[in-house]
């Protein structure tokens, strides 16, 4: 499921252009499951399960399974339609280099939204 991100982003020239200065390893947490997503120049280089006890990422966005399930619905319900909304609801959290995350926030929101209606 998460692996679909790679094609959805890399085949979207406008999104790749928006992220052309984005180089980061992002942790993505969905409930108990975690991934490391390597972004290079706005393209997703690789997506790996974060299955080691010691991992390194620049920043991470982690949320409950329910939060992501609703976020990825074709028309998500109020308060579940945006990363910031879910932060406010206490159902998501940021970790790591927050400035780097926020400097790329619009791009990252659009990246994560590509899975909407496909999960």
């Amino acid at each position, binding site marked *: 499921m998460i692996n679909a991100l790679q094609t959805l982003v890399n085949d979207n020239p406008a999104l790749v252009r928006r992220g052309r200065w984005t180089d980061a390893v992002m942790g993505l947490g969905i409930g108990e499951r975690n991934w490391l997503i390597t972004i290079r120049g706005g393209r997703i280089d690789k997506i790996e399960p974060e299955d080691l006890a010691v991992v390194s990422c620049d920043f991470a966005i982690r949320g409950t399974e329910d939060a992501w399930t609703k976020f990825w619905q074709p028309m998500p319900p109020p308060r579940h339609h945006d*990363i910031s909304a879910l932060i406010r609801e206490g159902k998501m959290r940021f970790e790591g280099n927050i400035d780097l995350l926020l400097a790329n926030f619009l791009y990252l929101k659009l990246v994560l939204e590509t899975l909407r209606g496909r999960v």
Partner: protein
Amino acid sequence: MEIEAITGRYGHLEIGGRTYRLYWEEAGSGIPLLCLHTAGSDARQYRALLNDPEVTDRFRVIAFDMPWHGKSSPPVGFQDEEYQLTTEGYVDLVVTVSLALRLDRPVVMGCSIGGRVVLELAKRHPDLFRAVIGLQSSAFAQRYFPIDPLHKPNIHGGEMCAAYCYGLVGPGAPLEHRWETLWHYMQGGPGVFKGDLHFYSMDGDVSDRLSEIDTSACPVFMLTGEYDYSCTPEASQETAALIPGAELTVMKGLGHFPMSEDPDAFREHLMPVLNRIIAD
């Protein structure tokens, strides 16, 4: 070329002891309808309303850029100051502009920070305003996100402001209007959105004064978008419950910027309110 009915002008006026060069736009004739934009944006948010003949046939619609916003300049010496909007400064601004434009008991409609300040105006100046319309209006908004990144040299302020507001637009808003709404945010001056949020979530708590609003002297109408997680429908409901006679409508599908994110959907909710004001 299709030319819109909107005209824009600049005026010089004194507000709080300082001189400002202020830009405003207007269209139509009839009851003055003074419109207040959201934090960090400008009066272009009201362009659909200013171009709506069903409104401008009966209302003189006026929308101004607050100082520091849009085409209104910051004051002389701004480069050495930190901009922060306060309750007193905001009330003074709206009253001063209304009097300077010689508006006869206008309806004042504001969104977000504007939706908050109209409650102050209804309480303090029912003699000056014939009704208030609060969009995304609540007595207070709890801060849920750090605001320093809105003005920090290692983060592009325009991109950050747009990212901050991206999800405040309802998910079903037409793309062209979503992105125009965000474009206004991308164009804001450094630190201006952050400075407005000082009023929104620090200084501007009106909770303890709501019961003193006399809606028989100045009716209070509130319209809140269902998808707003900053000023939630619940927050507006709690606020309306404290104002005797206030009327609240929750707008299905809409977010924090109803007049600009989805003008067609918004007017369905606004027109009944304007018709009520005309009838009164």
